[in-house]
């Protein structure tokens, strides 16, 4: 981090502090206040979008641990979300557990499935590993469509998921459900901030930068890669469970395909690989871009009604593809790097350039 001369820490606590300056407290306070009061002043559409952004960030945070920090390319994050969604839904429906107990169990279930496919990571790496996860991304949704039909919804690819209840509060309304996503997101964010700056996170980064060198330094490759897979799949499972309960349905009908996995990777890269801020910026950017493309598609479809079918569906992939390509060419370190530059420029002014 770039800091002006004379600005240094005087104690260990100061060195480890996440919030270092008064404006950090102000920024955090104001954004938390804005987030928690959102259902009071925002309309339903805004709250639903914020809810979607919140649980997508959780999934991308998981991918960030696996791909951003540990450097293992994964194309199966959406499939692990599907596992989490089904696990939570089945625990609530058939075991009668309350949602708030099923949620962590679903995360563990998804993590366990993630471990199975993570086993491939010891044998192969690079895009060979990408292929292993690609296979997972095909096999898991296929299993959900064609096995255990009475539980998983069969070829329809969907089952209904009940609304969570807690105390007398019904979370059927998105303005209530939003708080679940928000609180889980806060918890995962705090945990991941601490993962990234402790032994675990440093081991992940060393595996990414050079796995052979990391092994020589005493990092157990197998253990740490599996931990990364476990954390990634667990967070995907959390996100999937939240998504399933907020959409009140889970199954291949609701997405969870290869496309979603690719979009998660794109979000991560656009936000910034291996940074804690990246998932937030990337997810918000892509979700807003998708809204923008829906808006544009809607306007054009109204103008050319005979082409509406193709106009409505085609803008999302075009916008996403072009945005991803432009970011890869012009800013491969993502939006969070831009933010770093902006901050450094502000701190070092007038010597910015």
């Amino acid at each position, binding site marked *: 981090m770039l800091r002006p001369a004379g600005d240094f820490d005087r104690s260990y606590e100061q060195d480890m502090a996440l919030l270092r300056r008064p404006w950090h407290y102000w920024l955090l306070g104001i954004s938390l206040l804005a987030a928690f009061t959102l259902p009071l002043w925002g309309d339903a559409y805004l709250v639903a979008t914020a809810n979607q952004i919140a649980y997508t960030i959780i999934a991308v945070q998981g991918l960030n641990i696996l791909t951003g920090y540990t450097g293992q390319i994964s194309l199966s994050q959406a499939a692990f979300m599907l596992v989490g969604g089904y696990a939570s839904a089945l625990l609530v429906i058939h075991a009668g557990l309350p949602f708030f107990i099923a949620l962590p169990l679903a995360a563990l279930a998804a993590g366990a499935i993630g471990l199975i496919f993570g086993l491939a990571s010891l044998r192969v790496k690079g895009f060979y590993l990408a292929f292993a996860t690609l296979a997972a991304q095909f*096999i898991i949704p296929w299993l959900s469509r064609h096995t255990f039909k009475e539980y998983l919804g069969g070829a329809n690819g969907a089952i209904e998921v009940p609304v969570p209840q807690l105390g007398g509060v019904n979370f059927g309304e998105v303005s209530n459900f939003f708080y679940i996503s928000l609180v889980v997101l806060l918890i995962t964010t705090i945990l991941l901030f601490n993962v990234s700056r402790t032994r675990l996170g440093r081991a992940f980064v060393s595996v990414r930068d050079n796995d052979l060198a990391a092994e020589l330094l005493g990092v157990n490759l197998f253990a740490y890669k599996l931990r990364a897979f476990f954390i990634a799949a667990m967070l995907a499972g959390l996100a999937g469970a939240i998504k399933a309960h907020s959409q009140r349905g889970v199954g291949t009908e609701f997405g969870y395909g290869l496309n979603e996995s690719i979009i998660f990777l794109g979000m991560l890269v656009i936000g910034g690989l291996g940074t804690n801020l990246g998932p937030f910026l990337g997810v918000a950017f892509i979700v807003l871009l998708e809204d923008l493309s829906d808006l544009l598609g809607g306007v054009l479809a109204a103008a050319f009604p005979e082409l509406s079918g193709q106009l409505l569906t085609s803008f999302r992939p*075009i916008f996403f593809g072009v945005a991803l390509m432009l970011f890869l060419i012009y800013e491969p370190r993502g939006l969070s790097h831009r933010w770093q530059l902006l901050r450094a420029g502000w701190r070092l002014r007038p010597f910015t350039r």
Partner: protein
Amino acid sequence: MYDGGLMNWPLVPQQFVTGILNGGTIGLIALGIVLIYKSSEVFNFAHGHLVMFGAFLTWWFTGGGAEPGAGLIDLPLWAAVIAALIVSMGIGLLIERFALRPMTGQPLLAIMLMTLGLAQLFEGATAVLFGVELKSNFPAPFSPSDVLIIPFPGAFGDAIRLKYTLVATFGVAVLAAVVFIWFFNSTKTGLAMRATAEDHEVARSVGIKVSRVFGLSWGIAGVIATLGGVLLATVSGVSLNLSTVALIAFPAILLGGLESLGGALLGGFAIGLVQALVQASRLIEVRNSSEIAPYLLLLVVLLIRPEGLFGQKRIERI
């Protein structure tokens, strides 16, 4: 029909041949990916979308589903294929110049994501240009009901029935693959491409223009993809699903080995065969299991022999 065994034996010879015939197209598609990987170490995840786009282009050049004579362009199939091949070669060159060349020296993930972004772009562009619904009126040279019957005296139902479309696509695929492998191994341009694949620095030092070789390989890959798309379309019609169908080429490549052209072709046959044999076996009682079998095979290959049958084992140094 079943007598309780694992395989439905009367169907096996039939499915065996069908599988090999389907495998030709898979192998041809796989060849295009291996070509780009060999020359520039880029694994092209957008190849399936190039395949789909090529099929749509050909369909559009034949009149695009308009009434005969009413369309803007109304070419016979052979001319439409040639036109689509030329356009897709141009598209391949453009992709190399504007998407991949700026990425030279970037890490693997960035390049992989670039091709995935391209795939998304093609997905959307195809939908906006040609519409999203299935085009079942692709002008195939044979009707799907034309059947070639090879007498097979003996136990297996006395004859093997082959659809003419399958035989024709197999012929075209294998011919194209053989011509292409000959080109790669025996012409001067092909030798330049092989030299580039071996070592960029050395290729430069003997006077080969590496950037031109990259462009050329993307152009050729575009041509191969379109050809594969036309072959897939004659069997199953033109739709956005063709890109997913073409993903079957990935297991074929890994099975054959990333660096081997012949391996890709053989891998294609193997994948076609696996799919067909699953159809002939008891496993088909689980619906669509032939669609997932190649990916299970992919996992097995990755666990047992990641470099594939004919690939090179890589040695890493710190």
